[in-house]
């Protein structure tokens, strides 16, 4: 009985927590979260090495030995051979949709992706091999994890309603939203 009640309460809370507002309002702007999509496909297809890309938007950096990784927010990492810091060589781009942070141990690269961690064997950087597949978190596909944060300024987190037709949500970008139709109360 208790189990069913918890389940029931959970479902009620889920619906109460996420709101889709269909009423018409004047156009307004809020800071909130926008889903970043990767075209649907399995993770194994999405993570791959492509030819070097010019640096565009730059994110965090990571160094291991002579390897220098420069994140492109929500896209992956530029792989730079920094053996000679006066002649760094932009060698390749490792596509990891949704990626912001990476860390390395030995020849393994740990990368965040869709709220989870992908583990990639990069001993041959041209042929990255995923050694831990990532299951998609259903909650992450519905709303940004930040909406679960205790926020001392506001109890409501706005976000752009995700559209599954656009693909898998691999990241949530904090930005200015025009008339967001979705929010989550705490």
């Amino acid at each position, binding site marked *: 009985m208790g189990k069913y009640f918890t389940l029931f309460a959970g479902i009620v809370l889920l619906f109460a927590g996420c709101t889709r507002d269909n009423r018409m309002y004047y156009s307004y702007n809020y*800071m909130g979260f926008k889903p970043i999509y990767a075209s649907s496909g399995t993770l194994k297809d999405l993570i791959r090495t492509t030819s070097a*890309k*010019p*640096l*565009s*938007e*730059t*994110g*965090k*950096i*990571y*160094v*291991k*030995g*002579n*390897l*220098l990784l*420069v994140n492109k927010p929500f896209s992956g990492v530029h792989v*730079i051979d*920094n*053996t000679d*810091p*006066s*002649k*760094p060589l*932009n060698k390749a781009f490792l596509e990891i949709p949704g990626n*912001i*942070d*990476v*860390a*390395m*141990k*030995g*020849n*393994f690269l*740990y990368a*965040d992706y869709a*709220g989870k*961690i992908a*583990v990639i*064997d990069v*001993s041959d950087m041209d042929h990255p091999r995923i*050694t*831990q597949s990532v299951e998609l978190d259903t909650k992450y596909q519905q709303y*940004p*994890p*930040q909406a*679960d*944060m*205790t*926020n*001392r*300024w506001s109890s409501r987190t706005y976000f752009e309603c995700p559209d599954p037709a656009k693909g898998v949500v691999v990241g949530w970008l*904090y930005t200015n939203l025009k008339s967001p139709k979705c929010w989550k109360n705490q």
Partner: protein
Amino acid sequence: MLEKPMKNLILISSAIVLLLFSCSKDKSMSSDTGNSSTGEGGSMAAMTIMGDYMYRIAGGNAIEVYNISADSSAELATILNPGSGLETLFPYGKYLLVGTTSGMLIYDVTNGANPGYVSRYDHVVSCDPVVAQGNYAYVTLRDGTRCNRAANQLEVVDLSDITNPQRLTTIPMQQPHGLDADGDNLVVGEGSYGFKWFDIKDPVNPKQLKFENRVPCFDVISQGDHFIVVGSNGLYQYKYGTGTLEQLSVIPVSAN
């Protein structure tokens, strides 16, 4: 005047102490691809590896602990919920420093799977990465869209009593982002304003040597005799000189 054996003893013990403190950060620039060696992130990192464990800030209110002893997989071992506003992680010896919007949290990760809370350092609410070297932490505070009513400053925090971090110095800044302390050098990214290079021979009183205002800096990693800066103009590398910096290279950002 001390006697020679006594002198040697002091020398050896101070060498050991120095060695222990220098272990807080691996600065070796070898092409080491050994199976257990880890790399180094910038101070903006929200993910860091310490031994067989990887720590990750998830959703701003949780620290996930992954067991990566198998290397090829990351098993979620524990989730800590120390409160909201978690932003950056920095490995400091056996401690994990967590930069938050309200200050810094310190965890003892002697037991990697179960970090133990040690202490916290509070300041005004702002965005702030943290790095540490020796007995001192360098914390930047910055205003911005998600960092309400903030100040823009650099703080030097005494960690010699890890259970009771104390602010020693405050230096006003413009919009500090990532930073790195490495030997006598401290480089602080000032976001779109550029970056500043400080001499920290006296770790408590950083002395500004240069303000490079043409190179926006979001994050920085120092590597002994040179450092790497990344920002909206590109990836820049510099060599430390005596009061001057020599630009080694640049990979510019190009619109695409």
